């Protein structure tokens, strides 16, 4: 968008100034409008790149593409209950330490200090903590508290990075983590429409980070290990998400670039 308007025709600085003043005063979107439009468009963008591509799933044997639903053993259930109880205890002990509040960081530190050492119990506790952060972000968004949304999302992102880079997890926990992060991604994407404007950039960052974490976990999952892909397919490629947009990305009426208008 270059400016070659004043080098042609009988235009004047004064007319250009008036037209610009008119555009600025009466044609420019206000900040709220811009934020609303951005949130809705970015929601469509995230939805278009989020799912594992149906086309790719159709082209390869289903077990190689679809995230396998593995049975959750009793050991995992016990660990999850223990983690939830632990988390509930600390949440109760720090009543009032809302995200963004003066006690929030302290509450997170206490939570972390008392995490179980057993890897399975620790992994289950991390899942519960991730869920807690998302719940906090959602509650803060409903209250219109942008600061609290951002504080909860910061804690969420830190936890996502931590859990996604954890090593030595069982396949069962890897799958549970991937499922949980996928669910959180849906929740965060839905929040784009409701969150306060000031929280939108943070929300988009959290979505991107979660998206990358899901990809990372998926790539190192059992489907990517040698021998688990479909015949003739190199290991590590079978479950890779395809980012090609698939069909209309939102409920908006969408036509092709060529078919509308003239």
């Amino acid at each position: 968008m270059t400016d070659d308007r004043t080098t042609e025709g009988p235009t004047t600085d004064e007319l250009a100034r008036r037209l610009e003043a008119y555009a600025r005063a009466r044609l420019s979107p206000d900040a709220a409008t811009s934020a609303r439009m951005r949130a809705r468009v970015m929601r469509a963008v995230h939805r278009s790149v989020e799912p594992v591509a149906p086309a790719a799933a159709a082209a390869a044997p289903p077990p190689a593409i679809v995230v396998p639903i593995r049975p959750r053993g009793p050991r995992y259930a016990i660990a999850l209950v223990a983690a939830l109880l632990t988390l509930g205890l600390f949440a109760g002990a720090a009543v009032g330490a809302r995200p963004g509040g003066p006690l929030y960081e302290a509450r997170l530190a206490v939570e972390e200090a008392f995490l179980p050492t057993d890897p399975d119990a620790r992994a289950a506790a991390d899942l519960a903590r991730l869920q807690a952060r998302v719940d906090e972000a959602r509650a803060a968004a409903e209250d219109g508290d942008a600061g609290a949304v951002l504080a909860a999302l910061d804690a969420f992102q830190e936890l996502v990075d931590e859990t996604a880079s954890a090593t030595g997890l069982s396949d069962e926990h890897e799958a549970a983590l991937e499922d949980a992060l996928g669910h959180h991604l849906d929740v965060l994407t839905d929040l784009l429409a409701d969150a306060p404007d000031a929280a939108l950039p943070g929300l988009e960052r959290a979505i991107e980070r979660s998206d990358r974490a899901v990809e990372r976990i998926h790539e190192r999952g059992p489907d990517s290990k040698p021998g688990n892909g479909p015949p003739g397919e190199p290991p590590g490629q079978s479950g890779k998400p395809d980012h090609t947009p698939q069909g209309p990305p939102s409920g908006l009426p969408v036509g092709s670039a060529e078919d509308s208008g003239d």
Partner: protein
Amino acid sequence: MNLDDAAIERLVDEARAGDPWAFGRLFDHYNEPIYRYIVSRVHRPTDAEDLTQLVFVKALEALPRYESRGVPFGGWLFRLARNAVIDFVRTRHLHAGLDAAAEHATPDTAPDDQAIDRQMLDAVAGALTELTDEQQEAIALRFFAGLSAREAAEAMGKREGTVRGLQFRAIAALRRRLGLDDDRPNDRT
């Protein structure tokens, strides 16, 4: 946000590869000019908001099929916007008055200045209604959206020279209507 053509093409490539951040940057760069163009055509801010979103969602869908081939991305995007406006007007048979667009205030000016500005802005709005539809469109693309003549020509599906002619006649008419005919010494023709 200022982006040169090379940066825009890079962002387009990244967005086509599925990078949401790149598409977000393209939105940030183009959303205001697209909205300005659309609201100048449909006049009602709520309709302009819906249509602007629609244009970007359409762009997202059509991006895999976009090939530069000398066509600037801005021109391509504004062509989507123009088509969306045409569809909208065609289906709704809607031509609201400029009053709806006048809902915007000028919050950073003092009351006296606001009154003077309002008078001036009303005069501009009135002068614009005197233009032909194509002249209005040329002014909207060139002055409100800030497109180059080449991009405006691409958006309008016309030759660059035709767009320059439309703009020339529109400016002459606006000058007459706004009493700026005596402003010749400032001309940079």
